[in-house]
């Protein structure tokens, strides 16, 4: 096979065996790769009603056909499993170097089954793959684990691993790769920890073979040239200031979640803005494999109270740990980010869980005795302290480790958790951005900005501008946008490059650039209709898993604050999210019934 390597590793952790399987070319074409091949396998192998932290759950790491190629941003992979946070399917995406190395080692997908009796790691050295004992790594941070594995496998080996948070079952533990890149969401790290799998280390050999290398190289050159020409000798904004530059957009649109979504603007926004990060703590930007943008941030904080070095923060982090906790202190936010990276936790869920705790405290529902300190919005020291306590599951940290929904429910106020399907919101208030509400609510993985990010449509006008406050024109475009994102993820590309350079900026959002790359790489001969259909197939397959896990329309909802409490400030002042009005038209364009369940006709049409 070309583009795809044709090899799947099936790792039976219970028996300590690694088996090689060949991928089925028909499945590869129908599901593209990565996120698509992952959900195909998950549906085939996992009982959606299983205990997500039990041996019957399966953890999948899957790269796309363009991962590890020179396709711009061909750096991504997807981790898929049943989530312990949401009880639904999850797919958490990451870039860096590890995914490309996996492809160079000839592997498209790894599925981990069962549960090891003692900690292990998987070492893939070119053609060979073996499980090795990892008791000596258990308890180590992600950075320590990365360094130790470089020492005992091979220098330059690429590592994906969990930190102490994943080992201790923090329900939003991440899987970190290349030290600071995160498959962050939905507790994929907790599933890895439950399997006693500490890490995967890989060293590749050779390149990813391409079907038509000449056509591929020419098209890549053209794409890179067009990208450079558009910059007119300047820098890309995401390279200049990182993704935290997004604060300028969300603050000005009034959708920057502040104090657990009690406000849509933050008086301290300039402190957490990407421009301030550049000025204060940026050491250098950093790019993932084959990426012409380079939005990553290598940073260092010298402030004696919050000293540290590492990578980040990203936009989602400065929202969750910053404005959402009312913390206008970028040093503290960055420090808490470093702790999340080293302990292996999702910064979004961490920050939003602390924000929820702060509101519970301020309203008198969470007693001071339970925290051992006052816990007001804006307390930078509490932010850092509780982040560490959560990773260690110490004191109140043991409850915070369960995420905001379970925390708020414990204190009798689940309505104060800003979640969809028990997963914390991304950094956009759906009252000032109606389509975002629809995307959060209908995402099979719970609230996410990666399931058809409507910020492109409602804030940036890509592929076309729809008023952020309107709700009667959102359903169809968001459905199409969700499907295009599935194609991008499955191919192994990054959204940042793809939506602007590989998809037509027109209402019909044709993924022509992705098709050209896929066809030159794989020789699969996709036509546009097949490719668009594959995106829809992937989204519906995820929905199918969700439905089989017992979730449906009543779970496609948002907290009462978002549906009934008008936004008090900013341009969206007075708005609530009109989710109910968007949901029926959305189900209709999806071909789902009134309960949000894909119809038999739709499933047949998609070959599911």
């Amino acid at each position, binding site marked *: 096979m070309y583009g795809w390597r044709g090899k799947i590793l099936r790792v039976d952790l219970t028996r300590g065996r690694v088996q090689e399987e060949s991928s089925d070319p028909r499945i590869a074409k129908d599901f593209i790769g990565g996120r698509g091949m992952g959900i195909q396998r998950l549906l085939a192998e996992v009982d959606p009603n299983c205990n997500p932290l039990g041996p019957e759950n399966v953890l999948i790491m899957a790269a796309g056909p363009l991962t590890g190629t020179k396709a711009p941003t061909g750096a991504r992979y997807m981790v898929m499993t049943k989530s312990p946070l949401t009880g639904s399917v999850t797919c958490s995406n990451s870039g860096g170097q590890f995914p490309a190395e996996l492809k160079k080692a000839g592997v498209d997908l790894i599925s981990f089954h069962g549960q090891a009796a003692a900690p292990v790691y998987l070492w893939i050295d070119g053609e060979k793959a073996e499980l090795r004992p990892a008791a000596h790594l258990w308890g180590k941070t992600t950075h320590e684990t990365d360094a130790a594995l470089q020492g005992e496998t091979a220098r330059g080996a690429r590592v994906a691993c969990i930190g102490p948070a994943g080992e201790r079952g923090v329900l939003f533990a991440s899987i970190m790769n290349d030290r600071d890149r995160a498959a962050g969401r939905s507790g994929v790290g907790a599933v890895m920890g439950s399997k006693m799998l500490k890490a995967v280390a890989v060293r590749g050999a050779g390149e990813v073979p391409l079907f038509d290398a000449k056509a591929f190289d020419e098209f890549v050159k053209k794409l890179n040239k067009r990208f450079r020409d558009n910059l007119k000798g300047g*820098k890309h*904004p995401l390279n200049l200031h990182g993704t935290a*530059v997004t604060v300028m957009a969300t603050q*000005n649109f009034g959708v920057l979640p502040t104090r657990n979504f009690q406000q849509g603007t933050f008086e301290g926004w300039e402190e957490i803005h990407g421009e301030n990060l550049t000025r204060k703590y940026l050491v250098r930007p950093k790019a993932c494999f084959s990426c012409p943008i380079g939005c990553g941030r290598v940073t260092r904080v010298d402030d004696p109270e919050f000293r540290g070095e590492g990578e980040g923060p*990203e936009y989602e982090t400065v929202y969750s740990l910053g404005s959402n906790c009312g913390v206008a202190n970028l040093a503290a936010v960055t420090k808490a980010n470093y702790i999340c990276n080293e302990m292996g936790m999702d910064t979004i869920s961490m920050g939003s869980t602390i924000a929820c705790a702060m509101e519970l405290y301020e309203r008198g529902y969470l007693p001071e005795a339970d925290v051992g300190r006052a816990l007001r919005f804006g307390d930078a020291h509490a932010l850092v302290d509780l982040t560490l306590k959560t990773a260690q599951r110490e004191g109140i940290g043991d409850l915070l480790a369960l995420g905001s929904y379970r925390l708020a429910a414990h204190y009798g106020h689940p309505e104060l958790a800003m979640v969809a399907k028990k997963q914390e919101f991304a950094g956009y208030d759906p009252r000032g951005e109606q389509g975002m509400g629809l995307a959060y609510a209908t995402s099979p993985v719970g609230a996410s900005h990666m399931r058809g990010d409507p910020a492109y449509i409602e*804030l940036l006008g890509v592929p076309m501008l729809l008023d952020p406050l309107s709700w009667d024109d959102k359903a169809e475009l968001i459905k199409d946008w969700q499907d295009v994102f599935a194609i991008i993820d499955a191919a192994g590309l990054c959204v940042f490059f793809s939506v602007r350079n590989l998809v037509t900026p027109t209402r019909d959002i044709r993924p022509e650039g992705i098709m050209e790359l896929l066809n030159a790489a794989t020789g699969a001969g996709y036509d546009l209709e097949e490719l668009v259909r594959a995106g829809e197939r992937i989204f519906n397959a995820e929905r199918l898993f969700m439905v089989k896990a017992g979730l449906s329309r009543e779970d496609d909802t948002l907290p009462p604050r978002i549906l009934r409490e008008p936004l008090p400030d900013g*341009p969206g002042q007075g708005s609530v999210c009109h989710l109910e009005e968007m949901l029926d038209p959305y189900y209709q364009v999806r071909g789902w019934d009134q309960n949000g369940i894909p119809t038999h006709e739709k499933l047949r049409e998609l070959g599911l």
Partner: protein
Amino acid sequence: MKVEVQLYATLRKYGPLQEGPLVVDLTEGDQVARVLEILGMPPDEEKVILVNGRPAKWDSVLTEGDRVVLFPAVAGG
């Protein structure tokens, strides 16, 4: 009439070197395009235009005291 203009990130180069908003003098009936012209911003520069926090276009008509925000069309993270 006067309107306030705020530029961010890569678009700051079209404004004054120091931080803070810029006040632009316009004539009654002027559109956003007039602001871009005064700033010397080429029409093909990719950007988001907000007037008083609401999405606007190059031909949106401005009035006294409006707040125009211009930033590069990027978001994510």
